[in-house]
């Protein structure tokens, strides 16, 4: 990996190159994220999808420097053409929040229960911008209204426990947005919410990307959410990207056998099936990732080469895929 910014037609809001996260343990070094590269353009929503243990959350954490030791991060992270993975602790701390916002699964743990939501927003705004208390309050109110908190002025001095789950997630989104970051990392933002609330949050994320040009990295296990909101999608398996491409392509014409199996195993309301297609077995544990293609023990199409050598991620017009059995192009 060279240290020059990746050559791109339009400089992406976020570029990740060869990102790996390794965990030294007593039983050897485990690779949780393995050579992951992708770009997100301004105003684009990139979905990262995978099952538990695929390394998707750790990828998000590593980008914003939150992969705590003993985890070691390798590779490059470029934000608006500037490399941020080499920054020291204080510098990355300034980037985080100001330039990259984060939204996590459980909105309750992201909010301080002892401060009113108004105070939390005002504090965030005044940390990042020079504002008078009155201006900060006015802006905080505007943000709350923007994310759809009804009666924002009335609820400004209420505490997190006085809000429902969906409302709390809106507040977390307002907090992430308040510093006007160019990139937001959303890790399972709708998983803890009911479907009707999920639909509202999805619509909100979509509007943010569209109207404010925020680049969003959306990490989720839910293909339905990806289908509803993402522009492009990256599929991860056992720490590696196995397929990526435009959402419509990956969902309607998956090329990697894992993606195809995943799509076929999702029940749909559009058709009635007596039996779901299933992928036998489960994702391997980190200390037992098979040699060759990590998916080959579960793959009905695997041959000797799949068991022996790891397939590289090959890019073509239709996207990227890492599979020996898929012909490029």
């Amino acid at each position, binding site marked *: 990996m060279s240290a020059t910014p990746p050559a791109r037609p*339009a400089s992406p809001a976020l570029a990740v190159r060869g990102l790996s996260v390794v965990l030294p343990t007593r039983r050897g070094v485990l690779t949780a994220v393995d050579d992951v590269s992708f770009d997100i*353009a301004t105003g684009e929503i990139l979905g990262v999808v995978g099952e538990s243990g695929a390394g998707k959350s750790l990828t998000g954490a590593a980008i914003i420097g939150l992969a705590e030791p003993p985890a070691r991060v390798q590779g490059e992270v470029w934000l608006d053409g500037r490399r941020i993975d080499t920054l020291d602790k204080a510098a990355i701390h300034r980037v985080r929040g100001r330039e990259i916002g984060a939204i996590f699964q459980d909105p309750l743990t992201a909010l301080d229960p002892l401060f009113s939501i108004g105070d939390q927003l005002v504090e965030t705004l005044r940390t990042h911008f020079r504002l008078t208390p009155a201006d900060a309050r006015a802006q905080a109110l505007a943000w709350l209204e923007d994310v759809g908190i009804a009666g924002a002025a009335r609820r400004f001095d209420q505490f997190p426990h006085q809000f429902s789950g969906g409302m709390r997630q809106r507040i977390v989104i307002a907090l992430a947005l308040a510093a006007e970051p160019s990139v937001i990392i959303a890790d399972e933002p709708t998983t803890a919410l009911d479907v009707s609330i999920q639909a509202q949050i999805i619509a909100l994320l979509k509007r943010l990307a569209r109207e404010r040009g925020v680049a969003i990295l959306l990490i989720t296990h839910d293909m339905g959410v990806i289908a509803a909101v*993402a*522009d492009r999608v990256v599929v991860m398996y056992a720490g590696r990207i196995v397929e990526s491409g435009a959402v419509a392509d990956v969902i309607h014409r998956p090329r990697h056998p894992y993606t195809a199996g995943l799509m076929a195993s999702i029940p*749909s309301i559009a058709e009635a099936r007596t039996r779901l297609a299933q992928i036998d077995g489960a994702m391997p544990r980190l200390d037992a990732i098979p040699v060759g293609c990590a998916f080959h023990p579960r793959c009905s199409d695997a041959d000797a080469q799949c068991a022996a050598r790891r397939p590289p991620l090959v890019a073509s017009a*239709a996207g990227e895929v890492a599979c020996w059995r898929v012909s490029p192009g």
Partner: protein
Amino acid sequence: MSGGMDVLLEVRDLAKTFDVSAPWLDRLWTRAAPSLLRAVDGVSFSLRRGETLALVGESGCGKSTLARMIVGLAPPTRGSVMFDGVVLHGEGAITDREARRRARASMQMIFQDPHASLNPRWRVVDIVGEPIRAAEPGLARAALHLRVRALLEQVGLAAADLRKFPHQFSGGQRQRISIARALSTRPAFIVCDEPTSALDVSVQAQVLNLMGELQQRLRLSYLFISHNLAVVHHIADRVSVMYLGRIVESADTPALFAAARHPYSQMLLDAIPDLRAAGMDAARAGAGGHGAPASNGAANAATGVAADVSGNVSADVSGNVSADVSGNAIAAAGEVPDPLAPPPGCGFHPRCAYANARCRRETPRLTRLEGNHDVACHAVEEQRIAARTNLPPIARLASISRQGASGIPL
């Protein structure tokens, strides 16, 4: 009692009220009224042998409380439960302990979290064998092992897994152990409380397939509790939609998914992100692979079109509901109200586009429309809501593209 010979479970007017008041001395001091939470408020249904009834609804709608009352984990405040001809609760409940015990053994439950529902200190043989030992205290250890082995094989685990502990299994395998345990007393009826929501999709498919096979082979009846409508569509014969402790709509699965009548059911259906919708919104010209996301301008143009399209959906499908440009057909607006202070009249009226004065005053009763289709809604009864045909999402999109949102490949 109504229903033919085939009815296995009959629930009548079942209700559960939790007293969540402050201690009575405090109340005396502050003169606060006791506060009661009506978790389940008068639910009736029946379940036939070999049938799957799904209960759907959002958090706090009372679906788990209902299930717990049926299997006897929570005493009902009112109403009756009749199982296999035996009245377990309510008027004429049997007092014979032995008959009660037999009926109970025929009802089992599978829980959501297979990490929490298996004792980590017990071996699989003890976990799966415990209900057998409880039912047949005199059974020899060798015979017990034989039975457990057969149960494990039935759910797709190896007989050698007998000696292992729960932590040695993956989430999906653990849920298989739960299923084996539930099957150990040869039940006729199993309550499945979100059995796959803690599992990954590829594993969920394995467990759903297994449950389908077992139902066929053993003629089991399932009460399947879920918030995932796609899973419900796949597995259920009938669906009951719950809101604030009441059933608001109940229908055969195809009827509900094709023509839901209650505005809440319609809202839930419209809130499901469907995979086939992918690409209409993200159809960005030239957004090829990793190397070439669309330029910003093009991207904005494409999403602009998408916004128009969803606007059309709203107007098209939902008739006179106020269209919400930001998203779904019937915009999933508002939230479930505080169950401690439910709105008067129909519980759904604050979120409902069709609500009028009567809805705000009078609680609608579940009434039969046609066939097996029951709805509790004044607007449907007064025909203020025209019957809407829910096109499957793909057809819905096709009809939109015909309306001239050009440039959206399907």
